[in-house]
């Protein structure tokens, strides 16, 4: 766990980058600091590994004050990924990845050998290891940057706008990759971004920083979308927050109707094995426009309901056989009651406190 205790950063010219920030970052989760530029999110991040020293307040990692150890030693135990990777141009990819283990006294040979394994782990072919950073694409460089940060297997990973210098397609790839990696590694990750969609996609918890270094809201992304704390958060979160918020809800919560249920004159036609073929009605056979299975989120289910000619999404089992229908009215009821529960849950502690 990383704890900010009343942390303030004031520069000699009087600018306050962070003011009295108190915040707990949970172990093994991705915590995202998001906000407009100049809001202090990067300053807050860089105070964790002492790239910036706070003017007052303390930062603790698992109970230990970060200032209790020499900066360089502290930083070797904290992975650090920055925008545009910041690779060392004079070193090969392997030597870049091996940097921290070598600093920690591991032999170059050994460090290179484990670096090779790490390259594959971040989705790069091992033969890239002998190349220099200038020979890689931006996305590949960023993957190397992540591999370098992971090389010494640090429990904490700091990522400062790691994906903002690459194009949207590559960014999407890298985000997926990070989530996959995190699923395997379970690091304590603090990630800074100005992109709210990135924050919502990656964060287990999101800290929204407003101008003036004020912590506007600190909540799981679903709560951010469902119940923004103030106008600032709601404008940052943007449009369609209701619809986007559905992606955090399990689609299997909605009540199912049997497959042979007739919806507005349409019935689902299936083949001999029970796989859906389409909706049979007065206009002939209409396409289902897709199906959903176990683990689908409510956003996917809602989308299918909207697209379906019957206003009903078809649920299939692992073999692709239709095993239930989600009707628009059942979906609406489910969405309504969930939002009501969520708002009630968020409102209660306020009233009690």
């Amino acid at each position: 766990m990383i704890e900010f205790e009343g942390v303030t950063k004031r520069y000699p010219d009087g600018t306050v980058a962070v003011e009295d920030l108190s915040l707990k970052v949970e172990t093994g989760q991705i915590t995202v600091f998001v906000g407009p530029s100049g809001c202090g999110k990067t300053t807050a991040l860089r105070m964790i590994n002492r790239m910036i020293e706070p003017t007052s307040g303390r930062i603790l990692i698992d109970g230990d004050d970060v200032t209790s150890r020499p900066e360089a030693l502290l930083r070797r135990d904290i992975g650090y990924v920055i925008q545009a990777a910041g690779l060392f141009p004079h070193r090969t990819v392997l030597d870049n990845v091996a940097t921290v283990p070598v600093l920690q006294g591991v032999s170059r040979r050994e460090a290179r050998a484990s670096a090779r394994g790490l390259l594959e782990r971040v989705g790069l072919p091992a033969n890239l290891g002998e190349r220099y950073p200038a020979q890689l694409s931006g996305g590949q460089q960023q993957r190397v940057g992540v591999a370098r940060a992971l090389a010494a297997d640090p429990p904490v990973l700091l990522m400062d706008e790691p994906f903002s210098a690459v194009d949207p397609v590559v960014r999407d790839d890298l985000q997926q990759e990070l989530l996959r990696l995190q699923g395997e590694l379970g690091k304590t990750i603090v990630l800074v971004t100005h992109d709210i969609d990135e924050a919502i996609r990656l964060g287990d918890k999101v800290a929204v920083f407003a101008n003036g270094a004020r912590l506007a809201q600190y909540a799981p992304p679903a709560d951010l979308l469902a119940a923004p704390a103030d106008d600032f958060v709601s404008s940052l979160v943007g449009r369609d927050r209701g619809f986007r918020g559905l992606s955090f809800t399990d689609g299997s919560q909605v009540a199912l109707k049997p497959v042979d249920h007739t919806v507005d004159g349409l019935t689902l036609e299936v083949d001999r094995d029970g796989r859906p073929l389409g909706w049979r009605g007065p206009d002939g056979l209409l396409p289902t426009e897709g199906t959903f299975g176990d683990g689908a989120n409510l956003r996917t289910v809602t989308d299918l309901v909207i697209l379906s000619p019957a206003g009903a999404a078809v649920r299939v089992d692992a073999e692709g056989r239709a095993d239930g229908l989600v009707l628009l009215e059942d979906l609406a009821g489910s969405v309504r009651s969930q939002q009501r529960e969520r708002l009630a849950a968020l409102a209660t502690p306020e009233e009690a406190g």
Partner: protein
Amino acid sequence: MTLDYLLDAANWSLTSPDGFPQRILEHLGYTFLALVIAAVIAFPIGLLIGHTGRGALVAINLGNAGRALPTLGVLMLALALVGIGLVPVTFALVVLAIPPILATTYAGIQSVADETVDAARGVGMTEAQIAWRVEVPIAMPIIIGGLRNASLQVVSTATIAAYAGLGGLGRYLFDGLATLQYDKVVAGAIVLAVLAVAIDLALAGAQRLLVSPGVDGRGAGNRPTTARPAGRPAGAG
């Protein structure tokens, strides 16, 4: 014929105290000594200023002032102060060599991208490690460029050693002019020019060995055309 002196085999005798081999060695000695002393003084200062960003203005102005000093004038002054010999000559040449080495070391270190230094610090390098393992290797082409520049200036100016009563290739110039032996002057000038080019080529060779292919562009080929890593099918993951 003006090339007679140059082509006379007797002047290339290894044992003759006034032969080319002996004079070339002397000349190289003065040059090397001055360059080493200048580098020992200028390189750490340039490194410190480049790394910390402090004192840049002072260094640049001192460097420019040093450049404006006439080397012959410095030699005269040194001769007047310490008398004839190797010390005043070396002093004058060191004064000549410091500005290019200092300025390029500083400029090279300073040109290292901020994010690279930030990353080096962030992964836990100490300031000395940042300077030696990151900044110096990346700045190496520029630093060696400054050394080549300085060596060219010093090797051609080292002729003033003869003026201060020492040897070196300057002997042919001063003696030849004094005795109106122009073929001797021409020979000295040609050998000097060839020596200057040879030193520059040697340093260029050293540059190839010392500079990482990732820094000087040799490692910039084979850039993949797609952003997607090879060996990973599109749409996977």
